[in-house]
């Protein structure tokens, strides 16, 4: 890289040792959080385009971020410019590549899946090693989870490795959903009337067993006179609600302790190697929110026939909150990309008509809401989406505002149908990473790049979370964009 007219950045300061941070946490000291770039003054009146440009500028800016050197700062910025080129449907200098993994990071360093939940510092160490060894252009997930807190709150809707629970998965098995009907069909009206209130008072107590006290939280709507204010305060002062709130306070420090190493690692990955993380938030399509951990797969599929109107009303009802959760997170982090893993609308799960009726309208509204907030939704369609492409193509949304990820979808057709309006990515099979030869990987990536890269609007990515692959396989994958993805 030629020396540009000096790039502005903050020289990286040494991070305080983790032990010291933990001690501060134990003593109740609140950790200083970095001061983000202030939002535009008239944020609430700003247009979607103004917000979009603000986020883009914030993400690309090196001035407010720490880097090891001017060269790292330049690398960071170059990668993000390349990224924005494909997102905004221009040809960059080279096809960008990303990686999607969770459990692999631990495995690569000889740690177990249980370490994600019970030894966060191991995962942070492993994440640094992975990024050092592979030098991916974009940072991959470095998060670890507060397993002890999950134990303390009695989380039911997932099973994870390690820990004292009788249903703990084996040490080296990745976490999985424990499918269930955590919301009975008879609760639809409650949910539709007040989605957040319902979640907090009814659903939380079901999926977080030890927060049962939340059931007794009163409505927030009464405090208008001294008497009603006292009554409201009284309902928090004793009894089950207070037990639940006490527990939440008790686990707060442990939660920070568990996620802190991962946050520090991802900061270091950006500082030291200039690998950006672009995701500010995550949300789920309304139908999946209901289907994954509330009604369950079986429940929601039956609702299509037994309670179609309520299902539709519920999908609509959760749209605002499903937007807000992502907008809040992305705005706080000044990172506009919002990941949306898609589950139950895939080919085979339902007919095209059912998709058009039950899945798409509320999901579309959610996507439009995110775009309206200046963010860039990045839905990732697990399974295959061949029968959905026409519906996605027939959507009046400004070009380059949504990025579509695919797993087993036909990428040639996806490029033809969506390529004019959306950047697309994905499709390198998890099975190929796990069991293919290096040649097969090389050829697959070459073909994929040749099919999707012309004109820009494409980046290389796996079709599913990569948990099994040899290091050589990953190198072959990463190298393919350098071999085949350079634009002339």
């Amino acid at each position, binding site marked *: 890289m030629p020396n540009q007219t000096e790039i502005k950045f903050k020289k990286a300061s040494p991070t305080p040792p983790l032990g010291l941070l933990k001690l501060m946490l134990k003593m109740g000291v609140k950790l200083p959080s970095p001061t983000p770039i202030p939002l535009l003054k008239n944020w609430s009146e700003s247009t979607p385009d103004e917000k979009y440009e603000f986020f883009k500028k914030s993400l690309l800016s090196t001035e407010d971020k720490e880097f090891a050197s001017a060269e790292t700062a330049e690398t960071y910025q170059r990668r993000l410019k390349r990224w924005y080129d494909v997102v905004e449907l221009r040809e960059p200098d080279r096809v960008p590549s990303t990686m999607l993994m969770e459990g692999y990071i631990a495995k690569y360093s000889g740690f177990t899946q249980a370490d994600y939940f019970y030894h966060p510092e191991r995962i942070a160490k492993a994440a640094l090693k992975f990024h050092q060894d592979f030098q991916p252009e974009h940072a991959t997930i470095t998060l670890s989870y507060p397993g002890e807190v999950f134990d303390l709150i009695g989380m039911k809707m997932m099973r994870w490795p390690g820990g004292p629970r009788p249903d703990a998965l084996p040490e080296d098995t990745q976490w999985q959903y424990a499918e269930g009907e955590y919301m009975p069909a008879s609760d639809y009206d409650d949910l539709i009337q007040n989605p957040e209130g319902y979640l907090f008072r009814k659903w939380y107590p079901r999926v977080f067993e030890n927060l049962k006290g939340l059931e007794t939280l009163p409505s927030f709507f009464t405090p208008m006179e001294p008497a009603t204010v006292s009554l409201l305060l009284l309902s928090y002062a004793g009894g089950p609600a207070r037990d639940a709130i006490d527990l939440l306070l008790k686990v707060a420090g442990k939660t920070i302790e568990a996620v802190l190493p991962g946050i520090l690692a991802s900061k270091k990955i950006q500082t030291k190697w200039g690998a950006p993380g672009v995701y500010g938030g995550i949300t789920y399509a309304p139908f999946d929110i209901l289907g994954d951990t509330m009604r369950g*797969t079986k429940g929601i599929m039956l609702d299509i*026939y*037994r309670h179609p109107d309520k299902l539709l009303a519920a999908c609509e009802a959760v749209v605002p909150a499903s937007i807000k959760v992502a907008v809040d997170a992305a705005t706080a982090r000044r990172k506009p990309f919002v990941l949306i893993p898609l589950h139950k609308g895939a080919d085979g799960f339902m007919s095209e008509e*059912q998709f058009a009726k039950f899945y798409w309208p509320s999901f579309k509204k959610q996507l439009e809401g995110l775009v309206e907030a200046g963010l860039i939704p990045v839905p990732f369609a697990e399974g295959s989406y061949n029968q959905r492409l026409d519906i996605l193509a027939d959507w009046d949304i400004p070009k380059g505002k949504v990025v579509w990820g695919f797993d087993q979808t036909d990428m040639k057709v996806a490029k033809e149908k969506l390529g004019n309006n959306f950047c697309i990515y994905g499709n390198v099979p998890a099975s190929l990473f796990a069991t293919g030869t290096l040649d097969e990987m090389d050829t697959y990536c070459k073909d994929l790049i040749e099919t999707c890269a012309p004109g820009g609007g494409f980046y290389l990515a796996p079709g599913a979370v990569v948990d099994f692959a040899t290091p050589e396989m990953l190198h072959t994958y990463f190298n393919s964009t350098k071999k085949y993805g350079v634009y002339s």
Partner: protein
Amino acid sequence: MSEKLIAAIIEMREEDALKITDELLEGGTAPLEILDSCRKAMDVIGEQFEAGESFIPELIMSGEILAGISEMVKSRMTEGVDVAKLGKIVIGTVEGDIHDIAKDIVVFMLDINGFEVTDLGVDVPPAEFVQAVKQTGAKIVGLSGFLTLAYDPMKDTVAALNSAGLDVKVMIGGGQINEQIREYTDATAYGKDAMAAVTLAKEWTGELDA
């Protein structure tokens, strides 16, 4: 057979189907005849599924309707239903994977198509598959797995069945399973969905020409 009942099931009219069943039973229709209508309806739904006209909601919904009908019919049954089964199949989600929805649908479709299915549930170690095959004498084993973590347990299970000297055909299926994984695991075949499982099972038991 009752065309009305068959139509109600195919069109997913649950209440109608149960009402018609009740009327048929009151009118003296033999329980076995009602079950025959159910089977006929499921044949149609299976064909629609294969043709890409029916999907998961229809398979799950028809399963529920059938469960409702058999509940009503059971109380009237004087003799046990001794339907000649096409063949025995042992099925389960492999070790480490706890997903059951897709596996349950496959079990239901195999069962309704006349196979005697032993469902071992989820997170099933290779040794349990071996033991179940020995106990039942099944000639077909179905391995389900949603995640990539199922690759190695599937391979291990096929190996365990082979090294136990069991003469079985093994089908695999699930979210991240494909032909490449069939090769990797050395299973006999990969099936993309529940009807593919039925077709494979029929081929292997000589019910269909391969």
